[in-house]
């Protein structure tokens, strides 16, 4: 029996285009995994109605949300709110990973009170650095690469059966590795490294979870 997960991937502005790119790898990887079925709500499909329908009808065990957020909401296409206090009950028995700003502290705690197994997210703004000359091609942006690696480490780890806390640790190891290793001439031709390390340390500091740390997809 295959395990279901749902991923929301809006891409209507610069930030969501980068997040869309960050999740490309996991989408490609699960294509070849026979026991995992992924429902992609990409671009215009990342609406509240579609997200609620998938949560209700397909009952995925993992929901991976990419998009803008704040303490009370996570958004989809064109910043439509797709997860908030009104529908958070739909995350019951599920693991949620929200790659968005701020949502862990309030929405994450509410999700757990409503029965979600675990909620992974950020307690503050999610930061990354981009190369302005590469904003039309996020996949070629070396400044964004260390952020992408950490986010990929987390979702890869979750999807392939590690616990929530192990998956967070994988992402934190990646952040730590990048903070320590970033800044050679090769990967930092314009001297952006100090700011990149600061933003990596920020994401490292504020990535966290509520719920069962030993929950697995």
């Amino acid at each position, binding site marked *: 029996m295959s395990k279901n997960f749902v991923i929301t991937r809006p891409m209507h502005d610069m930030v969501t285009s980068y997040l869309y790119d960050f999740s490309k790898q996991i989408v490609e990887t699960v294509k070849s995994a026979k026991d995992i079925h992924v429902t992609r709500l990409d671009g215009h499909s990342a609406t509240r109605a579609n997200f609620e329908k998938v949560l209700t009808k397909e009952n995925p065990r993992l929901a991976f949300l990419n998009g803008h957020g704040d303490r009370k909401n996570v958004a989809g296409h064109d910043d439509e709110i797709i997860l908030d206090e009104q529908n958070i009950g739909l995350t019951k028995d599920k693991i949620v990973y929200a790659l968005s*700003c701020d949502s862990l502290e309030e929405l994450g705690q509410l999700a757990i009170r409503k029965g979600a197994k675990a909620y992974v997210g950020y307690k503050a703004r*999610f*930061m990354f*650095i981009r190369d302005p000359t590469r904003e039309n091609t996020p996949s070629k942006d070396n400044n964004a690469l260390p952020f992408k690696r950490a986010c990929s480490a987390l979702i890869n780890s979750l999807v392939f059966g590690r616990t929530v806390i192990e998956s967070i640790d994988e992402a934190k*190891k990646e952040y*730590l590795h990048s903070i320590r290793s970033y800044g050679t001439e090769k990967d930092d031709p314009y001297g952006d490294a100090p*700011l990149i390390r600061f933003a990596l340390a*920020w994401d490292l500091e*504020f990535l966290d979870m509520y719920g069962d740390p030993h929950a697995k997809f």
Partner: protein
Amino acid sequence: MNEKFDLEEERKLLVLERFKTLNPDAKISLGGGEEITVKKIIYHIEKGDDFGKKAIQVQIKMLQVLGSGVPS
């Protein structure tokens, strides 16, 4: 000699000095679609608001990571 050593103030000054060595117009992208410049980060630190306090906390953590290896 009566001056009391204020660790928080020393941290703030250290972090400010480090940010002042960076290009003030360099930007960080924030998930909400906004951007924040180094100049603005310095403003928040000097003001001592929540964002500024977080920036100090993070920069100190980063220095610990670079200096020794902080437990994750």
